[in-house]
């Protein structure tokens, strides 16, 4: 069959114009003298450290809470498995602001808001599906024979988990951690609404800079965020090693 390479043109042109060119412009704006000075500022470094710390805590919480869930789902029969996966994923497809509102609605009477813990909880609540899906994918593929062999050779369940299950599901853990960490680091609405002025993350500060027409600083901060995510995306694709879009 003759190749239909002309098909490449419309999407490539669109993405060049509205993704590649804008990113190049953003990079140029970020490398202005003002932009560079802003990134080197101790206040900016403190902001970056706080954002990374919060994102890492939320990712860790997703992993610790999500691993048993993924493990349980992988051991269910096909019917329950699909239902449970559906239930885990469904909230993700509903509006983020609405979910955050619901969480605030419930946390407010308890007074647990406007601190780092609340932000971590909010991010965990919204991004858990990103962790459970890849974990489920790798746990489901675990060869049962290896687990049985480990048991037969006298290993305790804990030892089997630490020496067999955990290492074999490492690709799922890595993929899940990256898939959660990236959007969480760039989160804007959740930290703004649940953390307020005291727990600002990168996203809120980018918004403040552009609101004050302080574009060089805003672009520089966006570029830092982009570099973080590019590095992690590259890692993600190394762990995934599949061809094609799916």
């Amino acid at each position, binding site marked *: *069959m*003759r*190749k239909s*390479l002309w098909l*490449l043109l*419309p*999407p*490539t042109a*669109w*993405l060049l114009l509205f*993704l590649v060119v*804008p990113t190049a*412009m953003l990079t140029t704006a970020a490398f202005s003298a003002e932009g560079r000075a802003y990134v080197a500022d101790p206040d900016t470094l403190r902001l970056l450290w706080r954002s990374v710390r919060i994102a890492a805590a939320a990712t860790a919480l997703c992993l610790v809470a999500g691993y*048993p869930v993924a*493990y*349980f789902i992988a*051991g269910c029969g096909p019917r329950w498995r*699909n239902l*449970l*996966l*559906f*239930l*885990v*994923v*469904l*909230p993700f*497809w*509903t*509006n*983020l*602001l*609405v*979910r955050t*509102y*619901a969480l*605030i*609605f*419930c946390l*407010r*009477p308890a007074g647990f808001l406007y601190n780092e813990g609340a932000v971590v909880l909010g991010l965990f*609540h919204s991004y858990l599906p*990103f962790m459970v*899906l*890849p974990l*489920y*994918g790798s746990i489901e593929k675990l060869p049962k024979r290896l687990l049985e062999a480990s048991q037969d050779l006298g290993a305790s369940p804990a030892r089997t988990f630490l020496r067999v299950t955990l290492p074999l599901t490492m690709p*799922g853990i890595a993929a899940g951690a990256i*898939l959660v960490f*990236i959007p969480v680091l*760039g989160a*804007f*609405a959740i930290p703004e*609404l649940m953390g307020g002025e005291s727990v600002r993350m990168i996203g809120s500060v980018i918004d403040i800079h*552009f609101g004050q027409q302080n*574009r060089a600083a805003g672009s520089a901060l966006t570029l830092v965020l*982009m570099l973080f*995510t590019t590095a992690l*995306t590259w890692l993600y694709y190394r762990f995934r090693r599949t061809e094609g*879009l*799916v």
Partner: protein
Amino acid sequence: MRRALGAWTGIVLVALYLPIVVTGVFSFNDSKAMRWSGFTLKWYEEVFRDHNLRDAVTKTFLIAIPAALLSTVLGTVAALAARERFRGKKLYNTLVALPVMVPDIVLAIALLTLFYAVAVPRSLGTAVVAHVTFDLAYVAIVVSARLQGLDRSVELAARDLGATAWGAFWRVTFPAILPGILSGAVLAFTLSFDDFVITYFTAGTGNTTLPWRIYSLMGRFGVTPEISAVSTMILVASAALIVAALKLAKVPVGGGGR
């Protein structure tokens, strides 16, 4: 052990859904307090009377519908192109899937920089452009999944039997991938409908969409029964849309992970 895992899964699911259910229930509560004092629909009536909210709903559709249509066409074309063999295919795949991985605020600021540079004032149009750029990736992924299940020899057979390339596409390929295209379209619409960050940075003042309106209401008033009522309606609507999209795609959720 299995029982403990099951209990934990139950706890996590309750933690995910409880706030949503509580908010929904209290949107029918007669008093503004967190104590139940009788069923009412008055908050919903107030929501329907609110001009600003109605205007926000209109704006949301004015962005989401064109964005969904355009991204469905572009995303389907992108997925069809990804089937061919060509040089730089890896780069092409990365480019198409990139908007899924990049945090939305990065995409929004990059486009904002472009709009500033070419001095295009922000409008519903610039918001549609921004939405298409990220919707496209999701449509391409969904349609690609459908294309992978399609036996290419059927298309070749159509060509051998004298169909033109165009004819073979419309009579063979298109009907086979139509469910994927439709679910891609619903997905794109849902993503655009729910989006806050991209719209916030690229639509400009005066084009406040529904999520944006909720964001500013929350910033100003915190928690109110009216916001609870709007939230409940949005939640029910988007859950229904997603179930429809999944039914159309006929793919088990998360089969094989993302």
